[in-house]
């Protein structure tokens, strides 16, 4: 792998930047691998990277039906935070946060992780009680967080309407300074490049159409490019996980919904941080390019069409104008949707399944981008050991039968 540095930039300038290597190979599928990862989004690529890097398992294929990182990874609003309420989820997201903090160095790839802080606004007394409870829980778990007043919010984000004139006046917020945003494509590409360099085959334009199962054990997958063998298969297919589970003969406690986002025309820097509000239901940040990045809510119906309803867009922009009246005349540039895999408790599923050797990592729903490195890290461990990583253990499918749900609707309500 060609390493990136200031020096290499200067060196390549001398040859007019015409000799940079490709990021990864485009290999022909082998007959058999030790591990197959289905789904080349951020989570699948991170899984492959850590399998190779930390567990020395390099005979691995990532099978992606489209292009790398073209699913929800490319469609999300890139909010990263770890201020979840319950111990189990706090551990998972904070594990991820720690990896984010060293990720660009580790990957030798600039993922543009920017810890500009995340505000979660409260507009009602109940919001404020929930926020206080969550911030206290976070601090007990060693996660940074503060409850801030409208005056402090005004200092952090002057463009926000913190006055009492607002229809839903802001009473306070939780503030996680270590939260922020990252460049979604770079995350997928960085993990892909690192995995490829260690021998992982990245098979794009390859769709898994079924599983080969013998005596209750997985022995490979069917694809549109022929059958490929493996005794361990990890499915990291987000919105399509229910479809994959059905191919393997079981159901998941997952529903696939459209989730939309939109970006405005580029503006001069106006937002310092990430602002989210569960109550008026919108969230916003500004990209380095200058566009306002705005996230919507999910459509309540099932949908695989990667587009949602106009009414959701309308409600979202109402919420943004409620928080930032000065944006009322900003023009929107683009709008799109992804398919998010929601679970009843708003927590992911990282789990073995009724089929031996077949594991699923899904159910990240509306908020899994922030978990990309952590999810890949614990899932790689799980695949390498054939049993759940200690942090992942609580996220088994079994919880929907034992009743040990991890209800994060409070922390994840809107939420990303």
């Amino acid at each position, binding site marked *: 792998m060609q390493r990136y540095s200031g020096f290499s930039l200067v060196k390549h300038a001398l040859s007019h930047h015409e000799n940079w290597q490709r990021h990864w190979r485009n290999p022909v599928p082998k007959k058999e691998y030790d591990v197959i990862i289905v789904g080349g989004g951020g989570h699948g690529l991170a899984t492959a990277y850590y399998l190779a890097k930390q567990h020395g398992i390099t005979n691995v294929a990532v099978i992606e*039906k*489209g*292009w790398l990182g*073209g699913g929800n990874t490319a469609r999300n609003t890139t909010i990263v935070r770890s201020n979840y309420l319950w111990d189990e989820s706090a551990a998972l997201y904070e594990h991820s946060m720690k990896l984010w903090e060293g990720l660009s160095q580790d990957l030798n790839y600039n993922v543009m992780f920017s810890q500009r802080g995340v505000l979660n606004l409260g507009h009602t007394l109940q919001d404020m009680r929930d926020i206080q409870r969550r911030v206290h829980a976070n601090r007990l778990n060693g996660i940074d967080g503060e409850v801030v007043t409208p005056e402090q919010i005004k200092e952090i984000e002057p463009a926000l309407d913190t006055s009492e004139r607002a229809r839903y006046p802001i009473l306070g917020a939780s503030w996680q300074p270590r939260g922020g945003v990252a460049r979604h494509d770079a995350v997928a590409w960085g993990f892909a490049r690192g995995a490829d360099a260690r021998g992982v085959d990245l098979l794009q*334009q*390859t*769709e898994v159409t079924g599983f080969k199962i013998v005596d209750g054990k997985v022995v490979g997958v069917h694809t*549109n*490019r*022929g059958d490929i063998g493996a005794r361990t298969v990890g499915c990291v297919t987000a919105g*399509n996980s*229910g*479809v994959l589970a*059905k191919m393997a003969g079981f*159901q*998941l*406690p*997952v*529903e*696939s919904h459209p989730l939309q986002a939109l970006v405005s025309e580029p503006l001069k820097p106006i937002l310092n941080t990430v602002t989210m509000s569960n109550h008026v239901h919108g969230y916003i940040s500004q990209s380095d390019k200058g566009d306002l990045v705005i996230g919507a809510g999910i*459509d*309540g*119906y*099932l*949908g*695989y*069409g*990667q*587009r949602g*309803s*106009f*009414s959701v867009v309308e409600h979202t922009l109402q919420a943004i104008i409620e928080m930032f009246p000065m944006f009322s005349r900003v023009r929107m540039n683009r709008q799109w949707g992804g*398919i998010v895999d929601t679970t*009843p408790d708003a927590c992911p599923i990282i789990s073995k399944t009724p089929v031996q050797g077949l594991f699923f990592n899904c159910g990240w729903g509306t908020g899994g981008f922030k978990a990309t490195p952590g999810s890949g890290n614990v899932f790689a461990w799980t695949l390498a050991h054939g049993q759940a990583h200690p942090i992942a253990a609580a996220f088994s499918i079994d919880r*929907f*039968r*034992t*009743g040990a749900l991890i209800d994060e609707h409070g922390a994840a309500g809107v939420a990303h």
Partner: protein
Amino acid sequence: MFHIYCPYCAEYREEEEFHPKGQAHIARPADPTASSDDAWGDYLFFRDNPRGVHHELWVHAVGCRKFFNITRDTRSYAILETYRMGEQPGVTAETATLAERDIERRTSDTATIQGVPS
């Protein structure tokens, strides 16, 4: 934006008047206290979530406030029929034709429809 025919009001109304309520025709275990954890978990949480024809429950929330069912394709979003509570669907995954489902025209998950040369 959906234009939904409410089988009770017998009129087409805009999507905003309705709320989707999840998979239809889920039978509650007859004797909940006797049901196993597995059966109860299945009933509460596990869903078909099909990529294709789906029978789902909706409520005409700001209209007549009645619940009813819709058969819809989750790829094209085409509504194939609406029918009252207690009735069975007239269209299913097996019987719906491609034209009805409107797949060619409206599917937008490009990765799948483009197909893939090997």
